């Protein structure tokens, strides 16, 4: 970047005026009004698992408090390793523990795992197909701290890596249920994580919902639009469906918590039903995430509904208050509903 183009960048930045939302805390709540929440579902599920399986250990690179791993560190300190602010040894030591028969859960922020520790995840973990579980907070746009903390391309980075299982959970139910499931999977897993007070949404729509590896599930049926969503965007899509129902638009929501391996059978079966607009929705850059994975699946199979993508733009995103940013980049339920309406 030249000095001149940097100057242009500064000029382009808006000067806030009037009522402002303060820059959110590092971990802003994702819960919309009226949602039930569960506190630290990952940490509690991991403690429950560790009590029944001696192979389970937890490692953190100085972010235990911010990945809910502090629950394990407090309740079972002998099963917790503080690795310090050192993501490369976090991952390679987890690989070494896995070699010795343990099931390590390594946690940090998604940006640091995907960007800083990638070579170690690729060679020390994935190439050797070791059962290291990498569970990472602040996926996509879930913090207002700007690009240093916004892992908008983590799934794109890891989708190209053989042997990896990739998870983008929606809510507290997904997170609590996936912990024993990914531990039982004999291979490497990367999962995005929501921490702190995490909304509980899926069981409101589907009381018998059970997270399963490699399975996409219909959470809501509808005849006009099919939204294929992952992570927090399933939550937003469900809320958007309620808004659109008021306008007489009937929206189905297919939740895809596992990005790889993708449940192509369910996706093709649902997208192949005639008469529905198909929209993907993801908290991730438009490049290389759920939307492109679904698009490729449909095209290869010759299934060609009208297809649209809701995703983050191929840009470094702004810093600011999270609700403002979700509004700006189209991740709120109202914006999702508005975009879908515009495509009908």
């Amino acid at each position, binding site marked *: 970047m030249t000095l001149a183009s940097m100057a242009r960048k500064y000029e382009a930045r808006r000067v806030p005026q009037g009522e402002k939302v303060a820059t959110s805390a590092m971990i802003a709540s994702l819960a919309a009004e009226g949602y039930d929440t569960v506190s630290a579902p990952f940490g509690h599920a991991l403690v429950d698992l560790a009590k029944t399986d001696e192979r389970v*250990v937890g490692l953190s690179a100085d972010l235990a408090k911010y990945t809910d791993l502090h629950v394990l560190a407090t309740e079972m300190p002998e099963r917790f*390793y503080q*690795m*310090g602010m*050192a993501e*490369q*040894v976090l*991952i*390679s*030591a*987890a*690989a*070494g*523990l*896995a*070699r*010795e*028969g*343990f099931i*390590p859960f390594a946690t940090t922020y998604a940006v640091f795992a995907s960007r800083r520790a990638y*070579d*170690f995840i*690729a*060679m*020390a973990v994935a*190439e*050797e197909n070791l059962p290291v579980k990498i569970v990472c907070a602040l996926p996509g746009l879930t913090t207002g701290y700007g690009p240093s903390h916004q892992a908008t391309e983590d799934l794109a980075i890891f989708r190209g890596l053989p042997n990896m299982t990739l998870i983008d959970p929606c809510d507290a139910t997904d997170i609590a249920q996936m912990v024993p499931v990914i531990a039982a999977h004999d291979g490497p897993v990367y999962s995005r994580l929501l921490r702190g007070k995490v909304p509980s949404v899926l069981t409101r729509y589907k009381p018998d919902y059970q997270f399963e590896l490699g399975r996409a599930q219909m959470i809501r049926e509808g005849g006009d639009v099919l939204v294929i969503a992952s992570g927090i965007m399933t939550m937003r899509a469900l809320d958007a469906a309620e808004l659109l129902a008021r306008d007489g638009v009937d929206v189905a929501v297919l939740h895809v918590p596992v990005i790889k391996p993708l449940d192509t059978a369910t996706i093709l079966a649902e997208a192949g039903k005639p008469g529905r607009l198909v929209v993907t929705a993801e908290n991730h850059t438009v490049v290389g995430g759920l939307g492109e994975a679904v698009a490729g699946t449909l095209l290869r199979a010759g299934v060609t509904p009208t297809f649209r993508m809701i995703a983050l733009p191929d840009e470094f995103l702004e810093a600011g208050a999270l609700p403002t940013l979700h509004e700006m980049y189209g991740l709120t339920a109202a914006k999702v509903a508005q975009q879908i309406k515009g495509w009908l």
Partner: protein
Amino acid sequence: MGEVQGQGYIGQALGVADVLAAAYFHALTHDPKHPEWEGRDRFLLSIGHYAIALYAVLMEAGILPEDELETYGMDDSRMPMSGMASYTPGMEITGGSLGHGLGIAVGMAMGLQRKGNPAFVYNLMSDGELGEGSTWEAVMSAVQHRLGNLICLVDFNDQQADGKSTAALAQGDERGKWEAFGWHAQRVNGNDLDAVVAAFDAARAVTEAKPRVIIFDTTMCKGVPFLEAREITHFVRVEADEWSKALAVLEEGKPS
């Protein structure tokens, strides 16, 4: 092995041969018939391209059959140019992306302690890997976790791909650096077999719960003077008629 390809990491292999011989035939507890025996000392080859040297040692130790050595680097061989765990019995990890071995060794040493297994973890790395930041993350981590069952071996031949390691990042008092981090550190002539054996013994005999490092000063192409004299020895090309000459010189130099 190298003769089949006409070239290879022969300089490194000859330089580190004494260290590997002392490791496998003096220091390590292992069972050639059961390379994955739980009680074995773990030996990690962080520098994957040194595989040519480790294959020879694994053959001498009875872990690999001698007649397979000629397949080195060929299609369908179990002995690829850069060592990989899934290809070769006795190869603990996939090395080659440099700066990985010591971190994996940290995790394995933590795991062994957790299991109450008294085995040691050895990690063989190059002086070039001293430039990788991940090496120093692992150095600090081994001290923090009091890994007295971890022994790091540094092959200091002062050669990396673009020239001298000491002209790049391996500058200064290398032993002093490791000691400052809290390691038990030794620096010895890696081509003096008695000194190498003594260093292994001393490293294992440390009673404090701290990791140990031995920095071995080695000479690339050791034992073959006409190769030692070559300036660029990172990836040696040896002409067809030179192999027999090299073998003859090595044979002469063998201790009786």
